[in-house]
């Protein structure tokens, strides 16, 4: 398809994205911001698809449109008094409300500071645009991209993004799993889980009864397909986590996480742990750290990805719970 035919799509998508971003950032009410942000994520998925980044579009569809929306909505729900106060006043009575210039929030910080920071941001935008134009207009040699495609045959997978994530730049992915683990530990340190949800009605229960198995199947499919087409541990983990989040929202007690604390710890660590173990085994075999023998690379990557999917899903479900899960023993007292 030639590019000129897509121009209308590009222009309209960009308009939609910019207006949604602006509305998200200037909304006077937190819940409104969150809903606008969800819509922003949906349009963004289309932009990634159009820019030939299906791997990113998959992750955005699973995380941007599903998980982070649920996460933020749950956070808004947690402060019903504060979050709803301004929405209530506006609903119904003022059909087309306008941005109020004399917002009390605006008066708090001094006008001078606001203007200075705004000017700073405008200046930064110009620097950023200049740098981007420099980067795009210079004759790129693309040595990295070329070496990726040159070595793809030896990586064990045929999807270049998976090859970069789990073979060529495996260090980054290992450290990223460590970052996820750190985030969960931080959440554990701060708080216990949020209060649960009321049991779902029949309609929502009907939805849960087919959606959860469908999401689990989809996660397995994405994990498997990631070797040769867009997909992989991150997208699969996010999809699996969505199943847990749905169960949680339906008021179910058992949301797929093990009840026992030690099993839970194992599940959280297995992704980065197995990754590290494979890396160290390579060292023991006299190869550089995380440098797989090409014959075995495909199997090793599948193994690591499966473990990573489990850890990522558990991390994201715990992130939605918002703290350490309460044990059954604690509940009795």
């Amino acid at each position: 398809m030639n590019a000129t035919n897509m121009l209308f799509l590009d222009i309209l998508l960009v308009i939609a994205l910019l207006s949604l971003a602006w509305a998200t950032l200037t909304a006077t009410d937190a819940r409104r911001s969150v809903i606008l942000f969800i819509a922003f994520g949906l349009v963004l998925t289309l932009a990634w698809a159009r820019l030939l980044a299906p791997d990113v579009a998959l992750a955005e569809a699973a995380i941007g449109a599903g998980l982070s929306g649920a996460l933020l909505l749950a956070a808004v729900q947690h402060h019903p008094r504060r979050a709803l106060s301004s929405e209530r006043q506006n609903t119904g009575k003022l059909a087309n409300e306008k941005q109020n210039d004399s917002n009390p929030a605006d008066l708090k910080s001094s006008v001078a500071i606001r203007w200075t920071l705004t000017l700073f941001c405008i200046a930064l935008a110009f620097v950023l645009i200049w740098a981007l134009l420099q980067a795009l207009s210079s004759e790129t040699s693309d040595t990295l991209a070329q070496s990726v495609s040159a070595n793809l045959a030896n990586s064990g997978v045929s999807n270049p993004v998976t090859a970069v994530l789990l073979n060529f730049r495996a260090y980054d992915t290992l450290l990223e799993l460590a970052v996820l683990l750190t985030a969960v530990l931080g959440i554990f340190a701060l708080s216990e889980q949020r209060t649960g949800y009321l049991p779902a009605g029949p309609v929502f229960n009907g939805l849960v009864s087919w959606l959860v198995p469908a999401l689990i199947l989809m996660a397995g499919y994405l994990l498997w397909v990631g070797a040769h087409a867009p997909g992989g541990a991150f997208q699969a983990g996010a999809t699996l986590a969505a199943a847990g989040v749905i169960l949680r929202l339906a008021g179910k007690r058992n949301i797929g996480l093990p009840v026992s604390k030690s099993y839970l710890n194992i599940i959280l660590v297995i992704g980065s742990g197995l990754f590290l173990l494979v890396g160290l085994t390579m060292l023991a075999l006299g190869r550089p750290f995380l440098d797989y023998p090409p014959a075995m690379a495909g199997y090793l990557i599948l193994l690591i990805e499966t473990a990573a999917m489990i850890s990522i899903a558990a991390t994201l479900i715990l992130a939605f719970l918002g703290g350490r899960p309460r044990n059954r023993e604690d509940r009795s007292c």
Partner: protein
Amino acid sequence: MLTAHWLYGLSGCLIMTFGLRAVLLNDSLLQRIIALNVMGTGVFMILITIAYRGPDAAPDPIPHALVLTGIVVAVSATALALTLIRRLTEEQDND
């Protein structure tokens, strides 16, 4: 340079700076977190635009891998920040 580069690259820059302004100036902590996410999205858009090489060429996989990890890290950081806010309001309510 392609038209798509202009359009998406410039809007990536704009979204990033809009987001930064809101992070700095918004009063609500929750909305600051959302603004941080929007800002991150702007950066992702710049990266994906750099990776794009026209409708017929395969895009550069390295920025795609970077953005993929970025999305997952962003959501876990968001969750951590939301837990921090919840703890903060709990402490304030206790006072």
